[in-house]
C-alpha cells in the first residue's frame, strides 16, 4: 500500500513499511544505542573528569569506563602533556633549524633590574596539568593566568638583582626562584597546574645598547692581547738574558780552571826543578847562568866589551842602524 505525495509535477512515492515486522527490533536498537553511550575510553595520557548533571562526580584514569547516558558528561584532560609558553620570543617552526619570529617582543622582554637598568630577558615556562578538576573548574582562562603570573614573577626576580648579576651569576637562581614563586601563586588560585620548568633562554642587554656591551668585550680582549704581547716580549728577552748569564758564568768557570791548572803546572815545574837543584845547588846555578848568558848574548849581534881599567870612554852608538838590525 504505497502513499503518493504530489509536489509540483513530481510524484513522490513513500514506500510503506510494515512496522509490525520490525516490532521486536526497535527496542533492541534503542538498548544498543544507549549502551554505546554508556561507555567511554580515557586515553593513556589523559584523565576523564565526570560531571553528573553538572556536578563534579569523579575523575577516571586511562581505560574503559561506564557512565550514565545523557546524565553524565566526560571531559578528557591531557594531564601528562607538557605545555610550553615562550616569553620575549616566539618559535615559528620548531625543528632541526628552528625558526623564530622576527617581531620584537620588547614589551614582554625588557625589564628593569635592581640597579634601574634595562635587561632583555627571554624565557620559557613548561607546565603540566596536575589536577584535572581544579584545572577545569577553578579558574577561567588558565593559560592566560600562567602568562600573567610568569611575567609578574620574572620581573619580581629581575627587579631584585643588578644588571650584572642578571646577565651572569644569578641566572640559575632567578629561574629556580621564579619556578617556586609561580607555583605558589598558581596554587593559591587553585589552577591545578604544576610548573615543571622555568628556564632563562637569553639574558642580554637590550638592542639599543648591545653595541656598547660588545665594545667592552672587544676592549677586554684588546687588553688581554696587549698583556699577552708584552708577556711574549718579556719571555723572549728573559730567556736571552738567562742564556747570556750562563755564558758569563761558564766563561768564568773556564777562566778559573785555566788559572788553577796554570798555577799548579808552574808550581809543579818549580818544585820538580827545585828538588834537583837542592841536590847540587852551585853547579845548577852556574849552569843556569851560563846557559842564559849563552842565549842572551848569543842573540845579540853587537857586543862591546870595555876594559874596566879604562879611564875615559865615550861609547859611540850608531843609532841609525838600530832600526834596520
Amino acid at each position, binding site marked *: 500500500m504505497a502513499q503518493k505525495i504530489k509536489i509540483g509535477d513530481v510524484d513522490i512515492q513513500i514506500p510503506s513499511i510494515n512496522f509490525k515486522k520490525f516490532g521486536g527490533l526497535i527496542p533492541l536498537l534503542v538498548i544498543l544505542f544507549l549502551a554505546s553511550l554508556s561507555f567511554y575510553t580515557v586515553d593513556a595520557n589523559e584523565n576523564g573528569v565526570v560531571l553528573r*548533571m*553538572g*556536578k*563534579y562526580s569523579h575523575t577516571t584514569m586511562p581505560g574503559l569506563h561506564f557512565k550514565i547516558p545523557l546524565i553524565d558528561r566526560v571531559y578528557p584532560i591531557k594531564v601528562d602533556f607538557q605545555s610550553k609558553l615562550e616569553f620575549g620570543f616566539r618559535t615559528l617552526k620548531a625543528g632541526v633549524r628552528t625558526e623564530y619570529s622576527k617581531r620584537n617582543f620588547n*614589551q614582554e622582554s625588557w625589564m628593569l*633590574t*635592581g640597579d634601574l*637598568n*634595562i635587561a632583555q630577558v627571554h624565557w620559557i615556562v613548561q607546565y603540566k596539568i596536575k589536577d584535572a578538576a581544579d584545572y577545569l*573548574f*577553578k*579558574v*577561567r*582562562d588558565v593559560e*592566560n*593566568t600562567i602568562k*600573567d603570573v610568569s611575567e609578574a614573577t620574572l620581573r*619580581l626576580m629581575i*627587579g*631584585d*638583582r*643588578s*644588571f650584572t648579576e642578571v646577565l651572569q651569576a644569578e641566572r640559575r637562581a632567578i629561574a629556580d626562584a621564579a619556578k617556586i614563586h609561580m607555583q605558589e601563586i598558581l596554587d593559591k*588560585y587553585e589552577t591545578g597546574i604544576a610548573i615543571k620548568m622555568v628556564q632563562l633562554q637569553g639574558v642580554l642587554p637590550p638592542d639599543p*645598547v648591545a653595541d*656598547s*656591551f660588545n665594545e*667592552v668585550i672587544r*676592549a677586554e680582549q*684588546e687588553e688581554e692581547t*696587549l*698583556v699577552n704581547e*708584552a*708577556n711574549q*716580549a*718579556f719571555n723572549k*728577552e*728573559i730567556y736571552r*738574558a738567562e742564556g*747570556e*748569564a750562563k755564558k*758569563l*758564568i761558564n*766563561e*768564568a768557570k773556564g777562566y*778559573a780552571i785555566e788559572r788553577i791548572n*796554570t*798555577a799548579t803546572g808552574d*808550581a809543579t815545574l*818549580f*818544585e820538580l826543578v*827545585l828538588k834537583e837543584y837542592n841536590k847540587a845547588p852551585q853547579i845548577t846555578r852556574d849552569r843556569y847562568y851560563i846557559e*842564559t848568558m849563552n842565549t*842572551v848574548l848569543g*842573540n*845579540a*849581534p853587537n857586543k862591546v866589551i870595555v*876594559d*874596566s881599567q879604562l879611564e875615559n870612554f865615550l861609547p859611540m852608538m850608531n843609532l841609525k842602524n838600530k832600526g834596520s*838590525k
Partner: protein
Amino acid sequence: MKQTIFLIIVVGVVILGFGSIYTINETEQAVVTQFGKPVGGAITDAGVHFKTPIIQTVIKFDKRILEWDGSANEIPTLDNKYIFIDAFARWRISDALQFYKSAKNEMLAQSRLDDILDGAVRDEIANRTMVEIVRSSNRAMIIQDVESSSVNVNNKVIEDYSAKGARLDIVESILESVSKRLLDLNMGIEILDVQLKRINYTRQVQEQVFNRMISGQNQIAEKYRAQGQGKKQEILGMQVQRKKEIISGAYLESQKIKGEADANATRIYADAYGKSPEFYNFIKTLDTYSNTLDSSTQFILSTDNHYLKYLGK
C-alpha cells in the same frame, strides 16, 4: 475530544516539569529572579535545582576565578620618575546575589574594578620611590663598578640601590586597599590577588637610561684599554729589571769564580815558590833576561862583569 484534552495536559505537565528543573555546572553559580526581583539566596552548588516554572528566571554567573587586566598607566613615582605600570588582578564573584544587585553583569563589574584598581595602584606607586617599586628586598647586589675605576674622573651621584625594596609590600598594600573598598561597596566581589606585571620607563626616560648604560659601558671599555696599556708597560719595565738582575747576578757570580780561582792560584804559587824564595828569585831573573833581552839589545860589557871574569886573565 477527551483524548485531545488529555494530550494537552500531558504536554503542559512536561513543559512545566522541564521549566522547573535547571542544572548548575561546577563553573557556575546562579541567582533566581521573579519578575526581575531576586528570590532567595545565590545558588552555588553544582547539580540539579528546582524553581517555579515560567515566572522565575535563572541568571547564571561564573563561579571561577576571573581575570582583570588593567591598561598600562603612566604614573610619577615619589622620586619623580615617570613609569608605566601594568597591573593585573584575579577576582571572583563571592556573592552572586549582591553582585547581581549592584553590578548586574561582568562587563560592568570590570569597569568598576578598573576605577578601583587603577586608583589604588596610582595611590600606592605615587608614594614610593623607583627603587622601592622595582626591588623586593634589600639584598646586596653586585654592581659593575664603573665609578671607582681610575679612568673615570667625573664623579656622579651614585643612587642608593640598597634601599629596602618594597614590591611585595606595595602589592600587599594595593590588595588591602582594594579589598577594603570592595567590602565598603558590597558588590559581591572578592579580590584575590594583585600583581604588578610590567614596570617600564616612559620612552624619554628609557632613552636616558640607555644613554647612561652606553656611557657606562664606554667607560668600562676605555678602562680595559688603558689597563692593557698600563699592564704592557709594567711588564716591559719588569722585563728590563729582570734582565738587569739576571745579567748583573751572573757578573757577580762570574767575578766570584774568577776571584776564587785567582786566590787559589796565588796560594798554589806561594806554597811552591815559598819552599825556596832564593832559587825562585834566581831562576825567574834569569828567565826574564832571556825573555826581555833580544837581538835588538846592544850590550856594553865591562871586563869586571862576572860573566867575563875569565876573559881578563
